[in-house]
């Protein structure tokens, strides 16, 4: 028995089977353990990715077993035997029953009605307008800098911004500024996580001012304005309060705002 | 052996004298509501020379518009409601028939110097009966046990809310007794029952036995005090505090008066 197994390691057909199973196990269970080795947080691997990787592995294995004529015909031996040998009759019948059953089940699970909500594609950082109205006036957004930084000191502005943040932004965006406040679980889409490097570090302060002042209702259609629970703060916060809370956001997270040199006219990233 | 019996005889006779002095000098049940009464006076004999002891007496007058007591709605707790033939009234401001104010805690705030007094071994009993605390206002000495008794047999929690002491919040769902004490002097610690929002008592913790709570005639008596100058404070849970300085000589009796009420506040 053991001898037979050892022998099978040298047979291209069984080699191919073992490799394929090994590759699948590695993709499905192994990959998730890799990022933590480098101190990165891991996420579950989607099934579609596992499937793709396994197919790629299969192609590689087929290339390997067919690289010379002798190996290829040896590889085909057990398959041919299963198809024609008289003593393999039961294996043949089992395959003809099991494979169609699997195909039938897969088909059923694909066509059966399911009611998952369609993915709502929305543009996270849509292009801002060149200027906005604010409390009766007009603010030109292009090339606009945070006026509170002009005097060189942001200490008082940080404190003023802290007050604004804790009295208005905290329930959704959270103490940790990670978009996980005590209201976050009730919102869809989720509040923005300022700690995420895809958010405020990619934006100019002018862009952030626009988003705070005009909120969800001020988004263009591609930003799905009807869904966002981000209010327009224009009626509640003054211009200075908004600039102050922007200073708080950057100082608290340690990010620096994008400069106009990096951003171009839009002030956002594409 | 002999000296032991001598000391004991002296102790008993002094206690008896002090007791008589307290009843005689107080002007009729003055400290009747003072929960620590007899036992506290018994211990002070060891510290104070009876032959020269002085007394401070007085009364707390109420001024201003009479405050009407409100009936407590105990309908949620029939065990307690059934204990009353007349609707039970709130106890926060109780004005006596003679125009004095009940439930004022009077104590010596300053003037005892370095005198220290032993902690009475008798506990003070706080009874929960008919979903009310008895007494409503009382005093204890530092470290003196308070026996908290549930006579109702329904759930009470006793939630003390001190600021100088560590508090406690204990549950008594059946007829039972629990003992607690306070380690630091503090006046007017609220004791509340969260199950019955109307239940409130106030305990004051002092380092000596010179305290009293005004009762049905609004009077008080602090004795036997060593001759000296004292700051006497009166505390009421609605009207706050008032103090007076008074000097008493050997065997003297001084009388002081406090006034609480809307006009005084």
């Amino acid at each position, binding site marked *: 028995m053991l001898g037979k197994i050892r022998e099978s390691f040298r047979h291209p057909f069984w080699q191919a089977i073992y490799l394929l199973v090994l590759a699948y196990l590695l993709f499905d269970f192994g990959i998730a353990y890799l990022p933590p080795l480098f101190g990165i947080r891991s996420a579950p691997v989607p099934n579609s990715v596992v499937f793709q990787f396994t197919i790629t592995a299969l192609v590689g294995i087929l290339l390997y077993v067919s690289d010379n004529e002798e190996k290829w015909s040896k590889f085909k031996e057990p398959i041919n035997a299963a*198809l024609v040998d008289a003593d393999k009759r039961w294996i043949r019948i089992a*395959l003809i029953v099991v494979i*169609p059953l699997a195909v039938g089940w897969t088909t059923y699970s694909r066509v059966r009605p399911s009611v998952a909500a369609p993915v709502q594609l929305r543009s996270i950082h849509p292009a801002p307008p060149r200027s906005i109205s604010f409390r009766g006036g007009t603010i030109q957004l292009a090339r606009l800098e945070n006026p509170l930084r002009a005097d060189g000191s942001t200490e008082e502005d940080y404190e003023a911004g802290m007050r604004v943040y804790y*009295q208005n932004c*905290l329930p959704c965006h959270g103490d940790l500024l990670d978009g996980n406040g005590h209201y976050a679980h009730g919102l869809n889409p989720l509040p923005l996580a300022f700690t995420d490097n895809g958010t405020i570090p990619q934006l100019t302060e002018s862009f952030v001012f626009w988003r705070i002042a005009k909120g969800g209702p001020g988004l263009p259609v591609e930003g799905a304005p009807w869904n966002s*629970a981000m209010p327009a703060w224009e009626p509640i916060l003054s211009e200075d309060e908004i600039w102050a809370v922007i200073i708080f956001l950057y100082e608290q997270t340690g990010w620096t705002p994008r400069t106009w040199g990096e951003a171009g006219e839009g002030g956002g990233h594409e | 052996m002999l000296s032991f019996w001598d000391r004991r005889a002296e102790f008993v006779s002094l206690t008896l004298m002090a007791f008589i002095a307290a009843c005689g000098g107080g002007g009729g049940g003055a400290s009747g509501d003072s929960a620590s009464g007899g036992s506290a006076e018994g211990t002070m004999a060891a510290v104070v020379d009876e032959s020269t002891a002085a007394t401070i007496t007085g009364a707390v007058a109420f001024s201003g518009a009479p405050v009407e007591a409100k009936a407590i709605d105990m309908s949620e707790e029939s065990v307690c409601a059934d204990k009353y033939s007349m609707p039970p009234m709130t106890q926060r401001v109780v004005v006596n028939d003679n125009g004095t104010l009940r439930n004022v805690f009077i104590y010596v705030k300053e003037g005892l110097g370095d005198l220290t007094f032993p902690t009475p071994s008798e506990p003070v009993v706080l009874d929960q009966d008919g979903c009310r605390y008895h007494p409503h206002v009382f005093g204890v000495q530092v470290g003196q046990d308070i026996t908290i008794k549930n006579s109702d047999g329904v759930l009470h929690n006793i939630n003390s809310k001190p600021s100088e002491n560590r508090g406690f919040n*204990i549950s008594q769902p059946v007829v039972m007794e629990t003992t607690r004490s306070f380690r630091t002097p503090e006046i007017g610690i609220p004791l509340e029952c969260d199950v019955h*929002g109307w239940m409130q008592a106030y305990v004051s913790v002092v380092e000596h036995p010179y305290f009293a709570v005004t009762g049905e005639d609004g009077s008080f008596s602090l004795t036997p005090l060593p001759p000296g100058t004292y700051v006497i404070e009166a505390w009421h849970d609605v009207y706050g505090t008032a103090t007076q300085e008074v000097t008493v000589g050997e065997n003297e009796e001084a009388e002081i008066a406090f006034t609480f009420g809307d006009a005084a506040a």
Partner: protein
Amino acid sequence: MNKWPVFCLALSAFLVPTAGAAGQDVQAGQILYDKWCAGCHGFDGAGDGYAADYMLPRPRDFTLGIYQIRTTSNGSLPTDEDLVHVIDKGMPGTAMPGWEAKFSSSQINDVAAYIKTFSPFFEREGAPDPLEFGRQPRREGIAEGREFFEQIECFKCHGDAGRGDGPSAPTLQDDLDFPIRAADLTENWNFNGGGSVEDIYRRLRTGMDGSPMPSFSDLIDAQFMTEEQLWHVAQYVHSLSPEEGPTISDVIVARRFEGDLPASPNDSLWNQAEAFYIPMVGQIIADERWFAPSVDGLWVSAAHNDEQLALLIVWHDPSESPDPKWLEWQQSVAASMFPLLDSVGVTPLPDRLTVQFPTSIPTGRDRPYFLMGDARNPVYLWQWSSQGDVVPEATATGLGNVQPRRGESRTLASSAVWHQGEWRLQFGRSLATPDSEAELQFATGELIPIAFYAWDGSNGEQGSQRAVSSWYGIHLEQPTPPSVYLSPVIAMALTVGLGLLVVWRAQRREEG
């Protein structure tokens, strides 16, 4: 760049004694505290930070030295481990998040050391000893726990079914006289100190200092009950909550019934329809805002029979408003929350619930604004009030801009029952109505946007001061089309054919 930490360091060198357990750095703790904790708990630790009026329960006042979540006896200070534990994990059901993902354990130790400097008790009292809790008995005693739950009268505050609706619940206050809820024992994911049997047992033994929750340890000392019996109470309380906390699904599936729909909120037919959890949060984005919503989630079930649609909405509310017994609560919540109102309602308010749809099923991605629509895109509302003082159907074009729909042809019906801290409300309407312009015409197989609003009148909620949800979708099941069964059969037949062909060819080649 940022001079703030340097400033704090300089200040703390003067003010803060360097005392602290080994390995704790009070100054480092202060820098972290001022940056991350002071916004709620205040720079002076008095629980009066910027956000204090914007949350209920309010942030802890550290100057009192009173802590809810401890392993020490009632009235004692917490251990360092207790403080670190709460900072690590946060307090579920409150605004306090867990910090363990952000800070190292030595940083959290530093913050705990700094927090202790706010109260003189920590120096005066010395280190407290944790209680011995022992281990949960192997034998589960839920029935016995229920008996003791009744004997020690937990229901006085928590209610007979545990939903925080006991007779004493309306008058509960914390040590600072702010209104405080009796915990809803059926939602252990919201328990401030954690929802496991061990957590519950600890709260029973230690009490939750600063709140009305007392300690039950004296009952063991008085030999009224044993530790094991108190463990059974904890097991019983734990059994009141579902095994798993709620999961949020984007879609409410309206089960297709052949024949009759459930006739009332308590109809057992409702057991055949799955209940979907909809989280609710305060309406804090338009004036007047509301930071203390009472309803934090709804369970929604739906059923239809191609003619009628029925919705069952179940939520916990300790009061059947309007209820004069809760008037004081209503006033004290309003008085302690932003916006601090001068005139607080003098009449008890009713409970309300509204279901929101678009006026027609959207064809593209476009939908009305989630908060009551806007001028361009109105919403269609089903309204219910415990006092019957709302028009059942309405359209709206924004918050405070509601147009009631009156008239003869209304087919919307609603009925509601309140029992032991739970509302069960059923709406029913025909899928189609005569006015297809303003009223949504339901269709099967579509994903129809749906959202909810809830008001707890006894909590002072009315008008814009309400709990709101995001948009969700409701899907009315269709009869399963025959193709669902046909396709697999065809696929299987093809595979069998192909298999036979391969075998046949291989065998022929072998022979040939």
